[in-house]
């Protein structure tokens, strides 16, 4: 007697959605927030007096607060490792049709279930290395390094 009943054996040819199709969706999705940030930045500049010339440190801070986004697609976090400055807000966006979560191994942050195109953000105020997993698919792992 076989220990595995051959259910589904006839459907071995069936395939999950092709990665190429998801990559296209990824590009079109990520370009929108970038555009939004540019619009917001230009509006802010128009509405307020010209600020003093930013120092090098402030410029670095500005770069790090542009919400680096980690995309979740094909059951993985991309980029899988990310280094940000203290005070940075990191966003995750799920592009998979499967739901995923973002859960810190040390329970420093935890998202709810992210369905397709849902996002989650967390602001990192302490330096350190933060490992996280998807609690639905714990083979999905990532790391944020805050300096």
């Amino acid at each position: 007697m076989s220990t595995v009943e051959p259910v589904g054996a006839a459907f071995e040819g069936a395939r999950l959605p092709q990665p190429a199709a998801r990559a296209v969706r990824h590009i079109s999705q990520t370009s929108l927030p970038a555009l939004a940030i540019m619009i917001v930045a230009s509006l802010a500049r128009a509405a307020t007096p010209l600020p003093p010339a930013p120092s090098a440190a402030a410029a670095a801070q500005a770069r790090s607060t542009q919400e680096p986004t980690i995309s979740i697609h094909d059951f993985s976090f991309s980029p899988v490792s990310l280094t940000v400055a203290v005070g940075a807000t990191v966003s995750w966006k799920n592009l998979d049709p499967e739901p995923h979560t973002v859960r810190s191994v040390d329970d420093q942050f935890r998202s709810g279930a992210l369905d397709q195109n849902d996002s989650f953000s967390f602001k990192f105020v302490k330096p350190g290395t933060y490992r996280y997993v998807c609690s639905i698919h714990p083979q999905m792992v990532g790391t944020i390094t805050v300096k």
Partner: protein
Amino acid sequence: MSSDDSIAASRRGVLKCLAFGGAGTLFGLAGGVLAPLDLALAATKGRKSAPLDTPLFVQISDTHIGFNKEANPDVAGTLKQTIDLVNGMPVKPAFILHTGDITHLSKASEFDTAAQLLSELKVSELHTTPGEHDMADASASEYFNRYGKASANRGYYSFDTRGVHFVGLINVLNFKPNGLGALGSEQLEWLEADLKGRSASTPIVVFAHMPLWTIYEPWGWGTGDADQMTSYLRRFGSVTVLNGHIHQIVQKVEGNLTFHTARSTAFPQATAGNGPAPGPLKVPAEQLQKMLGLSSVTLKRHPSALALTDSTLA
């Protein structure tokens, strides 16, 4: 029916099962030997020896209320069909067991819809254990708010029905990176104490969402510390371990322990390692119902053991 009947019928059962594409398989379990029978034959035998075979419970799993992708845009509809299947059984089971992933995203609205659908069951007693999809809200509280009472919000508990000892375990908390499901030392200590002093002749049923043995590690289909659990169970004469999670039937018999995963009522998944990740499997519409279903378990008194039946919606 006797175990001799089971063995004699197994060959015909396998052939019939193949002919009908897995529309229903009964597994007679006696003395740790699992023999498949076909449902039509089982029904005939059942009528002749009805007083010995008592329907005990029905297992449903992975209803994923809230799922709406192409693999099955109507998971509420297929759950309703499953409920109709249960309500149409000639003798009502004592209770329904749901082995998790009641919802898809742990949303309150999904739990509410699931509860409304399950209330259509003509069997009032429902036992549950959560899946990782039921623990996906940030505070992991929606499940426990509704189903936490039985286990005092721990997720693990036991109860007895008709001389069978049932143990519900939780293995979808405390995931480690790249890890399998986990029970944890506190739960394992509780289990050891719960089983201690029970007669080895007591039939035991253990249930949890994720498989309690390793089926396929790269996809996390297993429980990392399940060996500790099985060491407590080996002395019992009849142990049935029931899981869901993988949306397909996989079985293993090891001594007196029978491990069995149930089909989903929502959508099938690829077989282990077949594809890049363990996602929903889109199959032709006419095939879907043959890949969804439930398991039912019958108590056999001579000898005291359990028989497992799998049924599909089509």
